[in-house]
């Protein structure tokens, strides 16, 4: 009985006590695209390369539609001065509208 118990305890487990225990994404993880500070020249290059059509220039800044974004990192690759792939992954929303966020360049 004890041996069986030990064997069961010795088994591999990949379960985390999320959210009590935080998930720390690895360095290369691509979460929500974020704006870097420093004036963006509004050239629209990022929106052009985005394969999902998730980016659009609007008067307030750069609009990111998280319901479309596939976290591919193309925008950050095209414009590393102004966009970086962040680590945020808790992106659920109760309303579709909330998924449209504006990246404001300082």
């Amino acid at each position, binding site marked *: 009985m004890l041996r069986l118990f030990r064997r069961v305890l010795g*088994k*591999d*487990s*990949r379960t985390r006590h999320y959210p009590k225990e935080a998930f720390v*994404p*690895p*360095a*290369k*993880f*691509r979460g929500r695209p974020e704006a870097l500070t420093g004036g963006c020249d509004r050239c629209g290059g990022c929106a052009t*390369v985005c*394969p*999902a059509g998730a980016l659009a220039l609007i008067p307030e800044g750069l609009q990111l539609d998280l319901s479309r974004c*596939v*976290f*591919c*990192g*193309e925008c950050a*690759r095209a414009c590393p001065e102004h966009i970086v*792939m962040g680590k945020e992954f808790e992106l659920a929303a109760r309303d579709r509208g909330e998924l449209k966020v504006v990246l404001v360049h300082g």
Partner: protein
Amino acid sequence: MSVDIEEIIREAPSGLAIRKERDDGTVHMTVDTEGFADLVAYLHARGGRLVSLHAADRRAADGAFTMHALIDLGVIVEVECAVRPDRASFHSLAPRVNAANWYEREVQDMFGLVPDGHPDPRPLVLYDDWPEGIYPLRKDFDPSVPVPRVPREYRFRRVEGEGVHEIPVGPVHAGVIEPGHFRFSAAGEPIIALEVRLGYVHRGVEKLSESIPYRKGVFLAERISGDASAAHSTAYCQAVERLCGAEVPERAEYIRTVVLEMERLYNHIGDIAGIALDTAFAVPAADGLALKERVLELNERLTGSRLLRSVNDIGGVTMDVSREEAMKVISRLVGLRQQFEKLAATMFSSTSMLDRVEGTGRLDREKARPLGCVGPVARASGIDMDARRDHPYAAYRNLSFRVPVRDGGDVDARTRVRVDEVRESFAIIEQALDGMPGGPLAAEVKEVPAGRTAFSLVEAPRGEVMHWIISGDGTPFRHKIRDPSFCNWLGMEFAVRGNIVPDFPLINKSFGLSYAGNDL
């Protein structure tokens, strides 16, 4: 394979065939519509394997549709013929080459070209309520205009006789896997026949690709079949690289190889765990899934994506693997390997599991070959094929590995082939990380000239993936994708015959097929 391609072509029945060598080492032959089926059937009879059979709508430029058959004779031979729009039909190959069955039905659905003499000309991929006379892959079909729906009923094959009953299963399944309908005809427990009806996740990927610039097409390719993103994107990139003559740097070839094998690892380990799960062998099932999770976590560290996305780029890769990362992965693999061996030992020493898998769902070589089965399914039925060795790409020609082949053809053989392939993948990843040459990650890519044709083969976890592209103006003009699942579903219809209904989930698992990849 030691076939003399010259001799085969010299003896070919159609003397009228015009032959061209392509610089990618393939042979291209053009015949008239009449001679097409004869020539393809002949090449097949001489030992060729049908890799793909598809059409293109070139009415605007050449006034005709074209049919294309790719045959693997060691060298890939592509046979092409024109089909006049006023005739819109061609001689069916299916009676002579069974593997052509689904391809021809697909061509009929998507292009409205009728395979004359096809033994089973029912629709295949279009939705049941798709109206007749609308063919999505014709150039005059506008995907932005909604298509009216007409209620229609698909006529399933019927088995009749005393005590025969039908069991419809799906398209929505208990495990919330992908959607597909299975219609069993059974007498008591044993299955007399199964008909698989797919198409529920048909998204029009090939049509969509015609409007997507090449660079963005990589992301589309990654999403053709979610757990084969590395394989599909590699196949797509390689085809485009051939179109524009890009030379992929060696370092990128090695990184692609590592990623492709990581993909095989997590898929195979998941499939092996699935066999334990479906035989109610809970401990190795849980262990196997934990091990799969470890591989997914490693994927995430290595590429930022559990499913290995965003690695491929036309001309190379987007991200590097540093020396430290490589060393870390190699040391992780040591532990994973030990765990995997324990898992395999637990599974194959259990008589109660072996009792479920041995002799179950047998597909013999005599069935698997004419159906054109590929991948682990083919290799478990005694067919020695693997694109990594037979048509090497990425870094495979510089690495040493075995291609495991078994001839049981049953669930047991398919599982053991995967176990052996996992072992090889471990070794390949180590070799590739160890021997990774320096240099750039991607080549300068020139514009893709219009009107060229190129294809590429990649051995995905499920078997050979093919991407075939005619280039257009900044986007593919025609993009044919052939997922291995498309070749293996019919194999399963045969494999379940004579088995009892409760063994079906297990057999299905051992085939491990993709629905989305099949439907496109």
